[in-house]
């Protein structure tokens, strides 16, 4: 991916190199290439442009601080992780005060048979363990199902957006989500997580 240069856009490896050189153009190039992509992720979670833009700035700062020493295999994935974490943190803190009408909220409501509401503190250790389980689960899925799961619950994309990407109906995506939910539930139960 990084080898081909789009019009006016640096390849990923060159952008990463700018980070390693501590060249502030790294931020500019990242912004040119990935701003809309990253904003979309944050918006899906927060449904608030101002908050999303703040997350974007935090992401750039996070990337700046992380590279070096980190040299990501996929800059796009790396940035997605940062902005998602940033947005999720903001989502959780905002949600304590008010309901957030975002795609993420809706996506989580779809998992009503698996997830319950939150009142307690988050357990970081457990989250890591569950993350491993979910990673394993995702590896077991077909590309299509993995894509739907990640789009919906990781990227908090809307059903219509996913359907458009896959070239199928929203109804189809909904049905596949139902299957994935059932499989996830089975997986989590099998791993001993109460749901």
């Amino acid at each position: 991916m990084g080898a081909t240069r789009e019009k006016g856009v640096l390849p990923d490896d060159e952008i990463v190199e700018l980070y390693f050189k501590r060249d502030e153009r790294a931020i500019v190039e990242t912004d040119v290439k990935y701003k809309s992509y990253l904003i979309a992720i944050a918006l899906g979670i927060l449904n608030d442009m101002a908050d999303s833009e703040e997350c974007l700035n935090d992401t750039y700062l996070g990337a700046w601080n992380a590279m070096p020493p980190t040299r990501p295999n996929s800059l796009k994935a790396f940035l997605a992780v940062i902005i998602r974490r940033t947005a999720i943190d903001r989502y959780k803190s905002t949600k304590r005060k008010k309901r957030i009408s975002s795609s993420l909220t809706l996506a989580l409501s779809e998992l009503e048979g698996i997830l319950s509401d939150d009142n307690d503190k988050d357990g970081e250790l457990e989250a890591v363990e569950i993350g491993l389980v979910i990673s394993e689960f995702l590896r077991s899925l077909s590309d299509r199902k993995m894509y739907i799961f990640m789009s919906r619950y990781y990227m908090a994309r809307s059903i219509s957006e996913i359907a458009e990407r896959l070239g199928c109906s929203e109804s189809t995506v909904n049905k596949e989500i139902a299957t994935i939910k059932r499989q996830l539930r089975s997986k989590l139960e099998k791993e001993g997580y109460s749901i």
Partner: protein
Amino acid sequence: MKKNEFLDALSHIDMDVLERYVNMDTALSSKPPRKKRTWVKKALLSAACVIIALTMFFVATSRMTTYPPETPPENTTDSTTGGGNIAPDPPEIKLDMVNFFGGVLAIKNADGKSNPFEVEGDGRRDSSLGREQMAQSGFAQLSVTDKASVSVDREDSFVTDRAIYFKILVDEGCDLLCDRFGAGILDVVITNNNFGTIITFSDNKDYCSFMYEKSKEDNGVVLTDIFSTNGYVSGSEIVWSTSEAVQRFHIGYTYGVDESHIREIHFFWDVGDGAELYELEVLNQEISYTTVSYSLLVSQIMDYYYNVYNQGLPNGELRYAFRSRGEEERLYIHIFTSGEFYICDSAYIADENDPFAFYLRGMNASLTDGHIMLQYRDESGEDVLVQAVRGSDGEFRLNGFLFEPYSITEDDAVNLPTLYFVSFGDDGEVHSYLRADTDGNFTAAKPGHLDPYFKSSDPKAVKGNWGRGENGIYFIYFHNNKKITIENVDFENGEAIVINNRSYTLCADPFPPDEVMESYLTAFGEKMGITRDHHYKVVDENERERESGSLRFYANRGGVAFYPNEDNANGYLGLNCADGAIIYGDRIFYPENHLLFVSPEILRDDDIVLRYDGTSEDGESLSFYLHRDGTFFVWSNTGGDVLFGKSVAVFEDNGIRLSGFGEYEGRSEYFGAWVDDGREEMLLMNASFKLVYDLRS
């Protein structure tokens, strides 16, 4: 698992998974939008394919005159299209359902003048029922455009109230079918279900079904999915098909357990060999196909071929009701998710004097683990609840008891000569019951002596209700205009504490949200809404009490309502279990088949406390979800869209602090205001839950 845990866990997904996703996402986003079901379109657009578009309509009696069943067709094979000829510039062929249930299917050219094919049905169906059913389903008009030839074999064609069966001869010019089957004779089954219309082609080895759905945009139809013997082909809607169906009397029923889970039940009744039941269950691409065979006297089954109604129950079970042509007997078939089914005879009807009240006046039904509750309105206009129990021996028994399901006021209670109160254990069996007679006596006992029938016309009837209170199950009945309340029943010894004159009609004070929701769970989670009447008040327009600056919440088994404090009937969100309607502002949604969906599975869930399925006035299938956190969604099952209520809180953590009416764009609207922790941070939303004002600082 908590939502936050899940979100955090996703943050720890391994990078290789994420990279796999990102790569796929990049690849997908770099592609132009893929056209849906390209191979279908390709096939359909190919010059020699059959394009089947549906718009079926019934031409009523006048059309029957044009193509009467007894009139033999002029040609059973069109000279221009039949016999394997490939017409150079073929006309559009229109399959016009002249009189589906009268047993005639006419296929004619698009100009409507010629009538190349005509298929006689068996003529057994009730045409009025058929029209109604078909009209509801949008089964309207079928047209076939083909440059190849299709001829219909009249000899092997027949029509039932659910489908048309006929055979066609397809020549090599029909790409779409020939690609799959080759040229030759194919069985064709056209049927409709809740989702649309299905045309199935089969060569007795393989089948291919085309699923059409009503188009939202133009009231037309669209080809949505194709299924074949090889399973999922395109989309994920299931269609049924089997060549066996062609030879058998068939009733099929499809419904969605939820928006993504579809179950279908099909009966195939052989004339002479009994009957078979097939169940297709589809969850996306996974199809399970269960065959359940049972023997039933053919004479009996044929007597009951008139399908009165069928419905899906909240836990995924199905119930069919049939009645004989003479309308004297009824037959029920109840199908459990396990595949078991039970056939119940007319004894299943509670009221002998009004056997069709069950059908004619609508019905609410719910099924919990071990018992079924049927609610209907009898001749006198009273609502009756009948509870039948599936015993450990696998049979249905009517452990009948009745109670007035809406209120516990004397005027509204059901009159009975003997009143039974029945409680059920977790195993679904009758746990205990209490019997109150017209002399004012009551008897508490273990089960085993419950009368299976009742009559509602006895003038000395007693009236009553029961519920679950602070001291366990209580019973209330009225005798000589005096309300008798019984608590602490000792079923072993038949003793109980009788508490007379205790008021159980209390006003519902505005609750803190958690209490409301807890009460909600109690109300709906326990045997379909046993109320704690000290918490709830009967939903009654005339009894609404208003208090400035607060939102009132009322609930009983008749429904729940969130009332604002202004005198405007349009301003509340109501779930009226009594007549099965969802009232939202000035819109009313009626549950399908008058079915009240209160799924025990859902109720046990931590999040959703109520699901309500209904149909809007314009026919759209809706589901109403009330979450424990107070949010609700109205979900369109048809389109999979959240119509309104998207992530909008009815009860936030800190509750609704204000509600009322105001003007918005010239209309009087209900507004809800959300205030955080008493600070002046306020959102105003109108009745459609659109954000009107954001007053947050």
